[in-house]
């Protein structure tokens, strides 16, 4: 009896949580089908008077969507893969290679997390211009193919892998690097996918950076398109949210694709004790 009540409460909480989470999205979607006039109606209608796909048409026509999409995919892919590669290597050094000065380097790198990225935009703009990279796609990914956050997260997971496996691999004739690739990487797949997902999300939604680094439409990414729907008199909500609804789709899709690997967890058995 008590169990049953508890279970009901559990579900109730989960459902409420889900509702709270979903309402803004529902709103976003619903608004994306409204006319601007409806947007200004108060109290706002939960659903649009009629589903107005026109907003989507307008949005797609107004922006060079395919170019943006291509650039977004390219930049996001490079950023994600790059981050994974650099963080795997670095996290390995930070968790398994013991050498003098390691902790100092770690601390220094860790401190980079504490600086707001807004602050670095201008200095990086100058650096990239010195590298002759302003207004190139390279500028969009190069500074982001490494992330201390990712290194930190991954190191945390690497530290959790029992030392015995390292020993076993060494005995099996595995070099450090091979151990990393053959044992640590597969074992931390969930963490790696988490990192990938986070990177994809960040990179996909990054607005300010491409806005500033790139000045021609052929090198812009999807979120920059959001700017088209903001005006002096405030945003064109219906269009903006239609656009936002479109660009969120690939990320959700990727998330759904990847999430099952994330939650698998690291299988630990096989290590006794």
């Amino acid at each position, binding site marked *: 009896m008590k169990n049953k009540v508890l279970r009901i409460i559990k579900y109730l909480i989960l459902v409420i949580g889900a509702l709270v989470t979903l309402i803004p999205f529902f709103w976003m979607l619903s608004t994306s089908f409204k006319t601007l006039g409806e947007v200004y109606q108060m109290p706002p209608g939960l659903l649009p008077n009629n589903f107005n796909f026109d907003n989507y048409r307008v949005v797609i026509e107004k922006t060079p969507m395919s170019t943006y999409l291509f650039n977004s995919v390219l930049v996001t892919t490079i950023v994600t893969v790059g981050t994974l590669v650099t963080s795997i290597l670095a996290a390995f050094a930070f968790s398994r290679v013991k050498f003098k000065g390691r902790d100092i380097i770690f601390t220094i790198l860790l401190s980079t997390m504490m600086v707001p990225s807004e602050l670095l935009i201008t200095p990086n703009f100058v650096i990239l211009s010195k590298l002759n990279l302003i207004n190139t796609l390279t500028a969009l990914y190069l500074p982001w193919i490494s992330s201390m956050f990712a290194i930190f997260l991954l190191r945390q997971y690497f530290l959790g892998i029992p030392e015995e496996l390292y020993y076993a691999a060494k*005995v099996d004739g595995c070099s450090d690097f091979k151990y990393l690739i053959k044992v640590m990487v597969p074992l931390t*797949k969930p963490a790696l996918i988490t990192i990938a997902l986070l990177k994809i999300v960040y990179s996909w939604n990054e607005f300010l950076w491409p806005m500033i680094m790139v000045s021609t439409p052929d090198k812009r990414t999807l979120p920059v398109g959001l700017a088209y729907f903001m005006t002096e008199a405030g945003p064109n909500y219906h269009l903006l949210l239609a656009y936002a609804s479109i660009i969120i789709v690939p990320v959700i899709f990727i998330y759904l694709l990847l999430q099952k690997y994330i939650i698998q967890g690291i*299988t630990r058995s096989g290590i006794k004790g």
Partner: protein
Amino acid sequence: MQIKIRSLAKKFKDVVAVDNLNIDIEDGELVTFLGPSGCGKSTTLFMIAGLINQDEGSIFFENQRIDNLKTEDRNIGMVFQNYALYPHLTVLKNILFPLEMMKINKKEALKRAEEVLELLQIQELGKRKPSQLSGGQQQRVAIARALVKKPKVLLMDEPLSNLDAKLRIETREEIRKLQQHLSITTIFVTHDQDEAASISDRILVLDNGKLQQYGNPREIYEEPSNLFTAKFMGSTPINIFDGTYTNDGILLKDNKIVSYGEKFSDLEINKVTLGVRPENLIVCKKEESSISAKVKHVDMIGKDNLVVFYIGEEKYRFFASPSDDIKSGDTIFLKFDKEKIMLFHPNTYESMSRCCI
């Protein structure tokens, strides 16, 4: 591969795990490290493997100092006490792993893996992940993984502890056969003296990180160099008496006399510690007996009955054949097999035997 260890030592913070160890292992020999829990067996093994750095001392393979060599370049096989199977790989892939590292071609590798799977009777587990195996099954996979690469040196840390007795005996016989066949120099850690005795060329007894004795099984069983070894060897604890040395024999507390063999004659000592294995206490007539006692209880151990009795607080044991039909509460009379008794110095506990040390 001949192995030579010189002045090896290792400390963990305040714990001395290994203390000035010197060992020589001949090529193709199987040596067992035997000792109580925490005596430093695993630590020594790990230093030989290069997985732990020694604090002091050096290790030689074929007179080649290899301390500086990386583990992966030492060409050793190892079975870990806690298995250390790769959790993300299937059993088969776990076993193929070392071969892959050796860049052996797929077909050959598969063949070898199957051989070893068969050897350990785990063919049908090939596709499972370690988490889906029972404890003993995991251990067998770990052994398979160590054997498959046919290493020059094989290190095994209690490789059989989770196997059932039958399989344990079979496996140890197979390991022994294989080891002799391939003549792999092997170090085998165990806490089971029977196992140690039956499998080893030589046994190294460790206590508290220190070498106690190094010799062949019968030597160690019959001529322990100190009381520790005497107590430690033999699956049934040895019986210990305090006595006084006289020329006629050892005078026990209750004034009974125990005669001793040649090797103990003419010792210059007064107090002495006498040890006798349970099988060397023999049921006899009252007249012949050095001990009479009341049986506390009788355990069945394999084919024999283990009879337990007390003298004061002290517990004593001996083996009786079931046909003797001894029951708890009976009074029994025992004599000592005089050739088999051991005498130890009452302070240093070193053996007083002439033949040794």
